[in-house]
């Protein structure tokens, strides 16, 4: 079980790393105080509106680490270079996903060559160009994707998630 334990540890480290990333993100939002924060329309729970990046931060097919809806929920933004499912921005090509596998909570890695997220735990794969569709795997859901908006400054805001995140029974903790 050495490898398995290792994966759990990696998972924990990933969560910690997520914390660090979002600490920075939270600071960025703080400096934006006063700007109109997009929030999600009426829903089951109130998601925070959170600025994740500016479109200038993104390069085609290079994952940009973020965390949403809070520090303990790592994810990425991706600019795909062509319009894709759920894509926003001037080219309809910016998407954001959780990077925790919805099967057992292991951290996914992104393979730029075929634009997939891959889970070392049980080999699940998700397609970044098809709304996080599970290409193959053991998860009972497709990859949670962010609801994104881009404002006039090119800031990318997250306002919701379309599936339950692994490891929490409410996407917004509390």
């Amino acid at each position: 079980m050495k490898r398995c334990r290792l994966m759990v540890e990696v998972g924990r480290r990933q969560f910690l790393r997520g914390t660090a990333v979002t600490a920075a993100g939270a600071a960025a939002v703080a400096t934006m105080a006063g700007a109109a924060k997009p929030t999600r329309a009426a829903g089951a729970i109130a998601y925070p509106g959170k600025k994740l990046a500016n479109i200038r931060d993104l390069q085609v097919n290079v994952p940009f680490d973020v965390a949403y809806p809070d520090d303990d929920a790592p994810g990425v933004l991706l600019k795909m270079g062509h319009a894709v499912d759920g894509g926003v921005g001037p080219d309809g090509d910016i998407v954001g996903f959780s990077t925790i596998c919805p099967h057992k909570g292991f951290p996914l890695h992104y393979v730029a060559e075929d634009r997939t997220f891959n889970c070392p735990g049980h080999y699940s794969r998700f397609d970044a160009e098809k709304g996080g569709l599970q290409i193959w795997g053991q998860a009972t859901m497709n990859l949670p994707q962010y609801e994104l908006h881009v404002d006039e400054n090119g800031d990318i805001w997250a306002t919701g998630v379309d599936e339950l995140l692994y490891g929490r029974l409410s996407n917004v903790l509390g």
Partner: protein
Amino acid sequence: MAYKRNVDRLPIIPPDAKEHVAMCHFCIVGCGYKVYTWDANREGGTAPSENIFGVDLSKQQPADSPAWYAPSMYNIVKQNGRDVHIVIKPDPDCVVNKGLGSIRGARLGELSYSTITGTQTKRLTDPMVWRYGQMQPTSWDDALDLVARVTVRVIKEYGEDGLFVSAFDHGGAGGGYENTWGTGKLYFGAMKVRNIRIHNRPAYNSEVHASRDMGVGELNNAYEDAELADTIVAIGTNALETQTNYFLAHWVPNLRGETLEKKKQLLPDEPHEPGRIIIVDPRRTVTVNACEVEAGKDRVLHLAINSGTDLVLFNALLTYIADKGWIDREFIEKYTVGFETPPGEAPMFPARPGGTFDEPRWPGFNEVLAANRTSIEEAAQICGVPAEDIVKAAHWIAEPKGGKRRRTMFGYEKGVIWGNDNYRTIGSIVNLALATGNIGREGGGCVRLGGHQEGYVRPSDAHVGRPAPYVDQLLISGKGGVHHIWGCDHYKTTLNAHEFKRVYKRRTDMVKDAMNSVPYGDREAMVDAIMAAIRMGGLFAVDVDIVPTKIGQHCHVWLPAATQGEMNLTSMNGERRMRITQRYMDPPGQAMPDCLIAARLANHMERVLREMGDHEYADRFKGFDWKTEEDAFMDGYHKHAHGGEFVTYERLIAMGTNGFQEPAQGIDANGRIIGTPRLYADGRFSTPDGKARFMITQWRGLQAPGKEEQKRRYRFLINNGRANAVWQSWYYDVDNRLVMDRWPYPFLEMNPEDMKELGLQAGDIVEVYNDAGATQAMVYPTPTAKRNETFMLFAAPRGVMGNVVNDGVNELVIPNYKQTWANIRKIADAPADVRRISFKSKEYRSA
């Protein structure tokens, strides 16, 4: 857009939720689950004292957390008439799956019947009969009276051979000891029905006659053996997709070297290494890829043999290993028929060259070796794999390690069971396992890996005979007057399906037309009209199932069954681990357990026979006064199964998801059932003298009629099988959004160069056609596919692969689905529901 549930939160399980023992319904592995239910009007909280897990749920939980469940594990169902929340989540304490849930089992929650959330509302809730030109609801008594009267009249005119039966014989949902006993007591006890077949094959026969004839029961090892083996030989099986958590929780740890400590502890007197694996499969599967990821490519040997040539490979391995002196001489001497052929041996051996049923003979090892002798070069040529790879396989299987015998586990499944020359091929595998002393010992075993769980207890089927009647062919040729179907859908899962459906529709339509000609309420006139149609070649069909089926479209009566969880149900898994799934929710409407439907049908047949004055025959339908499934269990398993006297519901519930391994040996001081981890650990095999047999298994090319010609006439091999997302779960998944969004049509894996030649794009709908019929599939570009060799998803509702499988079977009426050849042509561009899916490789890629 990929399907998303848009579920942001789930109700929290309160500390006082009811807990039930359950197993996954679907595949042979039988993963353990815990079922939690609590009243719909309340829930727990995030504080440790407010939830069943005792943890702070306001915090993110780590990977592999037991304190999380997915939306697919949740639902709202009825329990004793009240609405309750339900969570069905994998049990971390179950030794089978160790907390893992597959994409099938981890959806048990949302695959439950719920009038609140609308899931599985297609379930049958009431008996339905053909009335005024359509299926209409009726009462149990009305439906069973009609079935009993027609069945009795048919038997009176044609004998019991006029009653045809298709019935499950397995465990899990749509089976289990209660229900195989209920149906078995009816058809093999009260009656002696011969024209009976099983859900996935056109006769009543074993899938592994050869192994049983050799004295080797096919589920003879423990899942732990996959952790202890030096080498696993996986033949015609794609275990990551079809025995998922067996593979993940037991094979993978061995390949990673994580079981080394356990090996040293349990087997201290020999050297140990991380496990190796040999995979015999014409196709590169996700299993091959996962093994390479875990063990490294140098410890994985994929023998991508020509389809149907397994037997040659195993004969060559046996030859090489024997010539090297790596066989287990002591084992052969002590526990098998021995080296020399004894005079005048016993049981049936139909596939021996020149042998007949009247001339059985079991040869000694030396004669078998001489007859089966196959050189490595010959095998390389026939199997189409490099000679050095076959030699490497022989070393991995049997080369002694530090002077000690190598431990090798052989696991096989449908690639050979539904493959060429089933009897001899399986015999050739068992030969090698016996010769290397790998049965009944730690790290060994020669096992089928299995489809469904098992759950068989029935009165003797000896009257069926061997070979058993080829039921599909008899139905096609106009035989039989009434057909009782239990949890089977031949329209999706039989061979020669195109022809079967054509004839079946014609015959059952004759009865429908006859039924339309008389008022439904005039029972006597109705039965007379049905009988008149039967005499003209019609067929009266009764479908017992939990959901509407494809074959049900052409039936006259539907009887609604309860499934596992809506009734208490017992089964055993692929290591003979027997558990109970407790009833945790109500069945839909008037649905009843199959065993009780069988009992009530028996009651009605007895009544009808007494009305006719045939008391002698009526007396045979006594003994069906069961009120509950537990009554059927006590009448069946408890009284008739080997060791059954030790097994009760109460004891099984106490033993939870770990149960015990059959057969039961007794009860320990704590009242727990003592099981049997491995069969044949004492060296006594399942033959009259306790000695295992060897078998002459000579190569005879493509054995089933019509296959060689089909191979010559058509370009593409249409290899076929199952897929991870949907496996033993199609009957629910046909309207599960997650699954149908991924696989709206059956995929056809195809080499991109072949696609280019036929002008095909990813997702195009193609027709697959040959001399047996035609079907459709969705092209999935697969660079690892060999040229001219495709792989099609089996049993899909929107493209039935069985349509193009010809009627050729082996001498024991085992179908041959795998060796099918056909041509392929484009029908249409990818439809809208295909254009949105992904056609990327299914193989995991490392960082």
